[in-house]
């Protein structure tokens, strides 16, 4: 199972900065391990951000995103207590999601 994401939200007036860390190897399929074998490709492909169940941001990403991806997003028209859900889906079909409240 994927390690949980870490989210930090900073509310300023009615907009919120969201910073999320995802624990993932983001293997490009080009890297070699210590014994010289290719490390198989394995990376997050889709990232979604929802507020109160409404999809606000949908990201499609490639293996060019760095290992343990960190994203910052900016949400508008939000208030303390709004429900924030972030999820990812990777190239092996593994998923992770986390729910928090904006504060």
């Amino acid at each position, binding site marked *: 199972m994927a390690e949980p994401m870490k989210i930090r939200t900073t509310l300023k007036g009615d*907009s919120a900065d969201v910073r999320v860390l995802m624990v993932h190897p983001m293997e*490009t399929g*080009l*890297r*070699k391990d210590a014994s010289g074998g290719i490390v198989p490709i394995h990376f997050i*492909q*889709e990232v*979604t*951000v929802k*507020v109160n169940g*409404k*999809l*606000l*941001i*949908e*990201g*499609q*990403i*490639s*293996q*060019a*995103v*760095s*290992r343990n*991806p*960190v*994203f*910052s*997003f*900016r*949400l*508008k*028209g*939000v208030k303390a207590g709004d429900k924030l859900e972030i999820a990812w889906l990777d190239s092996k079909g593994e998923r992770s999601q986390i729910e928090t409240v904006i504060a």
Partner: protein
Amino acid sequence: MTVQAVAALAAGLLLPLRALAAWNKEAFQAKTAADALKNLGIASSAESKDVLIEAPQIAENGAVVPIEITSNVPNTKSIAIVIEKNPFPLAAKFDFSEGAAPYVKVNVKLGESSLVRVLAEAGGKFYSASKEIKVTIGGCGG
């Protein structure tokens, strides 16, 4: 309830999930920036000062290059990041709905020094900005 009715109901419940756009395999597997743009449906774009890229000019470590993008083009609905010299140039594409600012910060890998192009979509048109980033140690192989 019949088996068919249950199946139909289940399919209905699953629909919202499928409404998400699928990962654009053709665009992400394109080996040139031109092919990636073609597969994203971007035929032409206009340079715009309203698309801002904040990134280092020189990145010591190509494995972690922070890129911060803001589009001040009104009604921006998506932002794509293309790293021209990477083996697969399209790095990411973000779609924004009302309630999300057309802004993203993400760390990316650069295999070598490269021009990074950002394309923002608004009102069916594409607005671009680009920035050359020099890399001392590449971030793709190892």
